């Protein structure tokens, strides 16, 4: 079995510990929480559109990719990153090696792989192709053909 994590905090890019609240907690009390510099952890079933109005007061957003076949996180990442231009980090947690390329191009800025993938060459899977056939949230490092 994969070692699924349910983090209550994450380290941001400045090495500060950021407490995480759930989507429900944020919706319930976003006025108060938006002053505390917290991050929000989203599950695939959460309607990401409901947090878009106060994105500026969210420190970081964690999207959960534990379920290999559940692709909603990719659309959540796209909407946050490209459409609503979320400025903080979008961190993919419980990530799978074989899906890194999809996560990164959808707008995930950082990821935490499940432990079972330790020791594999992440580079190989995060940027496995020389070409991309579509515009996406992140096309860096790829030749475009579309």
């Amino acid at each position, binding site marked *: 079995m994969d070692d699924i994590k349910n983090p209550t905090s994450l380290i941001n890019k400045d090495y500060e510990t950021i407490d995480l609240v759930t989507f429900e907690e944020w919706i319930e009390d976003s006025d108060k929480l938006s002053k505390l510099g917290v991050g929000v952890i989203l599950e695939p079933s959460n309607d990401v559109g409901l947090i878009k109005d106060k994105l500026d007061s969210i420190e970081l957003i964690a999207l959960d990719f534990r379920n290999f076949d559940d692709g909603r996180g990719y659309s959540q990442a796209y909407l946050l990153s490209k459409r609503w231009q979320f400025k903080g980090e979008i961190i993919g947690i419980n990530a799978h090696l*074989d899906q890194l390329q999809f996560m990164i191009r959808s707008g995930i800025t950082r990821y935490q792989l499940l432990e079972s993938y330790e020791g594999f060459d992440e580079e190989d899977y995060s940027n496995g192709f020389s070409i991309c056939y579509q515009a996406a949230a992140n096309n860096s490092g790829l030749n475009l053909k579309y």
Partner: protein
Amino acid sequence: MYQYNAQDKQFLVERVDQFEKQLKRHLAGELDESKFRSLRLRNGLYMELHAHMLRIAIPYGILSSDQLRALADVADKYDRGFGHFTTRQNIQFNWIQLPEIANLLRDLTDAGLHAIQTSGKATRNITADPLSGLTEGEIEDARPYCELIRRWFNLHPEFSWLPGKFKIAINGAKLDETALRIHDLGLRLVRNEKGELGFSVFVGGGLGAAAMIGPETASFVPIVDILSYLESSLRIYNLKGRRDHQKKLRIKFLVRELGASEFSRLVDEDWQQTKDDPELKLNLTELESLKKDFALPIEPINLDGFKETVDFNYSIWKKNNVRSHKVLGHSIVNISLTKLGAAPGDATSEQMRILAKLADQFSSGEIRTTKRQTIVFPFVRKDQVFDLWKSLEQYGLSSPHQGTLAQIVACPGRDYCDLAKAVSIPIATRVQERFNDMNKLLDIGDLNINISGCENSCAHHHVTDIGLLGMQKNGEEYYQITLAGETLRETHIGKKLGPSVSGETIVDAVENIVNVYIDNRQQEEKFTDVFKRIGIIPFKEKVYG
């Protein structure tokens, strides 16, 4: 004809390299079965009853003679010397060994062939009318659009892990050879009142246990905006589609639950945010370049003095298998692979090589595949049709069955597929044996029979004149009969005739249905028209009476 360039082929190699690594990890126990399943399906690989099955894409149904030779080589080197042309413009190999997959796929990359997204919960091979570009009255050749849309959704980062599989068909002709309204998403090329080109969009069609005809969600999307509209449709599906119920994964269930107008409203709301994004506009320069690549390789020829050879067998074959071409002096030739006892759509490596050779000689090196599992030579000179027929005769490929009842569409069935509940091919064979008199077949005329071995409906039994669906009853094989489905002129799901019929008596039932048709038709009336006029009762009485 359009061919992949070096950059595209490099991409195919990279995809094989990646899959090979995943396969090695799986075989070493480092990638569990459920994840590997998800990954292998996206590379066209199924675990079937006896071996692995690999599905190779034939984008919009077009193959060059060299590509067909490459497939013949695969059939010999990795399979048992044959391949199976499917109803969705793919070819399947049924006897593949797992450790050989990467080498097989690598062999195909040079020919520009691949198995990417031929299965799995992603956008599948995009299908088109096999006669695209060839017939009069076409609104526009769909193939350049198929290619641009295929590319766009090739390993699309956002839409590669959808709730269910997603099949797209595009039609640019007046008659709908693609059956687009039974697809997850169908695009019909149309012109608006200003004469501008765009697409009507139909979403949520599908066969299976709950057959549905896709409602129209947009009547006119300008061609330049189609990518953003498709993305919005897929985004709504990705975010809101059912993932909690194995049998409700397809977009048709979402469209049904929300209602077509609400689904359409949600798509439109999303689309308003992206339609002006310059990155999402269809690349019109690339479109023009593709139109040149897809231009017909023939010029009009005046054959005024040409006299057709008189030969009885030739004339029968020609009547059924040859169609007129929009380019003067040319014909479209249909070649049936149907042989008694063999699976419809099956071709041996030898047949593939012969067809490749004949395509070079008679059809500018191009071959097309159809949803009736036949082969089309799209560019045959009228004064060479007889010579082509002679060659086909010599190789046993001159079956005059095209468009007759004997040209049966059948899935592999329980003989090969572990999803199937009943056999398909032996039923097709028995029907062909029952109707093996050519005069009788000609008298019956254009009548289609499709046989699916289970509710997955791979043989499209809902949308044909006589559809048979295999099922199990108390450990025995039974077949449910549906009548008068169609997609060509308009889309109708066939009507269930009544209780399912045992495998033992199913061929009698088919014969009875055919007889009711013949006894009641007026002049050249089609089966669906007779059914509309006389209703289901006469058929019921004859079959169950």
